[in-house]
């Protein structure tokens, strides 16, 4: 069971209170009807599936209820950082090599 820091509660809490919500920073196109089938497929289905640091979303569902973003190393499962929804995608911490 992971330990996750909720950026809204500002507490580090057990995974049991959280729900994973998929890759982060995949914004819904502003005008979906203007997208091509390929662009729409990318939005719906294509995922980075990074081996190493992975930008992803979690929800503190049994807590403050907020969706937020996290950067987690999918090899070690370590959280490198978590940040509030809407915050622009931060760069990789220099220390982390991207596998």
């Amino acid at each position, binding site marked *: *069971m992971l330990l996750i820091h909720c950026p809204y509660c500002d507490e580090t809490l057990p995974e049991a209170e959280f729900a994973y919500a998929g890759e982060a920073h995949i914004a819904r196109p502003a005008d979906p009807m203007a997208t091509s089938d390929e662009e729409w*497929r990318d939005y719906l289905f*294509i995922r980075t599936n990074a081996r190493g640091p992975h930008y992803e979303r979690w929800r503190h569902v049994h807590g403050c209820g907020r969706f937020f973003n996290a950067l987690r190393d*999918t090899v070690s499962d370590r959280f490198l950082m978590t940040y509030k929804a809407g915050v622009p995608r931060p760069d990789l911490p220099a220390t982390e090599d991207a596998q």
Partner: protein
Amino acid sequence: MTRFSAMSLLKNALTGQKGWREQWPDSQPRAEYDVVIVGAGGHGLGAAYYLAKEHGITNVAVIDKGWLGGGNTGRNTTIIRSNYLYDESARLYDHAVDLWEGLSQELNYNVMYSKRGVMMLAHNVHDIHSFQRHIHANRLNGVDNAWLTPGEAKVFCPPLNISPKARYPVLGAALQMRAGTARHDAVAWGYARAAAARGVDIIQNCPVTAIRRGPDGAVTGVETARGFIRAKKVAVSAAGHTSVLMDSAGLRMPLESYPLQALVSEPVKPCFPCVVMSNTVHAYISQSDKGELVIGSGTDQYTSYSQRGGLPLIEHTVAAICEVFPIFNRMRMLRKWGGIVDVTPDRSPILGKLPVPGLYVNCGWGTGGFKATPGAGHLLAWTVAKDAPHPINAPFTLERFTTGRLIDEAAAAAVAH
């Protein structure tokens, strides 16, 4: 290759087992191959074997970052079945079962394919409807799958708890007799030995770091830890690691890799004659020929390559087993392990050509890859050899995610309201 026979066994028994030779050589990579297969699991080794045997293509290398059969092939609960709903899936998996049936003889290697029957439990009205739909579709597709009453299910699997008072009472079951299990390692070893005997190079502990393409966009070979290997055709059969590899070829995949856990109990005398699956309570169980109860768990909720997996999932899985089989409550878990499964949006595999000339993929099997091993290998070999999909794997394209023709077995078993 020393052929296994009653005679060779006896001879070796009398000569202190001295006669056995290497089952496959641990090859060094050559500069060029006609076909490079990335991933020496059952699927990849099978593809190499069928390329050599059925298509006469023997200048083939199977390359793995670790030891052959060390991935999901050796980390699953070995359930084999083909009672899928959609025509496409039913044909795909039934093709595999056809090959399973003669595989030991085909490979001269006992893969211990055990047709002990797979029974899927229905716990509510919705399950019943869903199973009936499967059974009717299977019947018209020529796939065996029969409905059992709770009493019949209990006769087929005595440890089953069919009390109507259970939190999830057993209201019936769907049984595929032709389904069962096999010895997972033996499948990889058997294919490796038979492929090597036909001239295939098996290159272990040699991570493939990138797929290279020429100016015309076509595949030119693979970069590996032991240097560049030239090949006009590259087939990637690397399960959870497919996304990373494809990325190097400029292809982004509709895949996510999740940790999948499984566990075994201490070995006990035979007490469990078949395979039982309950998708509603998430319990998957059989007993190995060694006596261990082999139990499948679910995937953790987050993507991961750590092969660790959490305790809560194991707790839930074991609770589910004890709910359906209360007599196992005092049994003990001996060991649990984790694999990495690659899952597509519709939970069906992608098996075929890719937009990149000379590049082929076999991935997205999720938690169900082992059962398809011979079929996947066979169809991948066909697709590579003919540079065109076999009719059976033709629907399992990458394009379906653009056009919307998904093959979604799980959605078809939608939740009741």
